[in-house]
């Protein structure tokens, strides 16, 4: 019984690893995520490699790609945390420059948040993450970094402040700016008429020039 399960797990993993398209896409995605935290491309690749190897070593019954991906990302998350804890890094801080608001603090016309139309349209998790990634890449590095520490790595505000040596109010500003930018970017990318076409275009664009966040 047990060996059966093991056999199944093994074949399932092998299957994932043999799917070159899936694996290279996953690897790319992992590297981009990692680079929001560690700007050093080489270290990012090392960490991703380690995480992938870790996934192979710890064979588990993966029900499908989603399970496999989440397993790999869980390992990645731990590796990134390890790395961050070893060497904290201070991001540049930003002041609140709220161009979204007028002098009275009301939303500017073009900045008014639009509702995302995901629910019954059934935008899949995976597609959401692709767009999120695109949008993360458009943020200033320090914003992307703390956002990922908070939402992806799940660190508390206190922990983040300690790790990157910023004050709490700085952190709130950075997270606020990050969320503001992301929700705007996500809305823009989802509200298109032909969503699928937009998505395909953005995936291609993203794959060709992966790292273009010099602003």
């Amino acid at each position: 019984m047990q060996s059966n399960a093991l056999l199944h797990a093994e074949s399932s993993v092998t299957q994932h690893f043999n799917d070159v398209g899936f694996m290279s896409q996953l690897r790319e995605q992992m590297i981009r995520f990692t680079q929001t935290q560690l700007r050093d491309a080489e270290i990012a690749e090392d960490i991703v490699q380690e995480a992938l190897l870790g996934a192979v070593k710890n064979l588990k019954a993966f029900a499908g790609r989603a399970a496999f991906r989440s397993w790999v990302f869980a390992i990645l998350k731990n590796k990134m945390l390890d790395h961050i804890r070893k060497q904290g890094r201070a991001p540049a801080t930003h002041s609140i420059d709220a161009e979204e608001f007028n002098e009275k603090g009301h939303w500017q016309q073009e900045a008014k948040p639009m509702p995302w139309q995901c629910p019954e349209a059934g935008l899949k998790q995976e597609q959401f993450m692709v767009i999120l990634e695109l949008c993360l890449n458009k943020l200033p590095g320090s914003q992307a970094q703390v956002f990922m520490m908070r939402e992806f790595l799940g660190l508390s505000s206190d922990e983040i402040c300690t790790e990157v040596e910023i004050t709490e109010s700085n952190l709130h500003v950075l997270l606020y700016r990050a969320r503001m930018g992301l929700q705007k970017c996500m809305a823009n990318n989802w509200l298109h008429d032909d969503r699928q076409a937009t998505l395909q275009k953005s995936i291609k664009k993203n794959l060709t020039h992966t790292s273009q966040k010099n602003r």
Partner: protein
Amino acid sequence: MNCQKASELASRQYDQPLSLSKKISLKFHLLICKHCRNFNKNIEQLSHSMQSFLRGDDNKDQKTDTSDSDDSDSQLK
């Protein structure tokens, strides 16, 4: 409270507990302001989606408000 302040608090509530008075004024503003409500919903969804991505639930049921009644897709003949 204006929209700028409200959206700042909306963001902050995901990172630290707000004081009661801030919570109340935020709630009140959200009741009367559609834009800030959208903002709040969007950033909540951001966080929510990251979490479910990490958990590996690949389906889109964001709302679990359907209590444990039967599945709608039950195959009755």
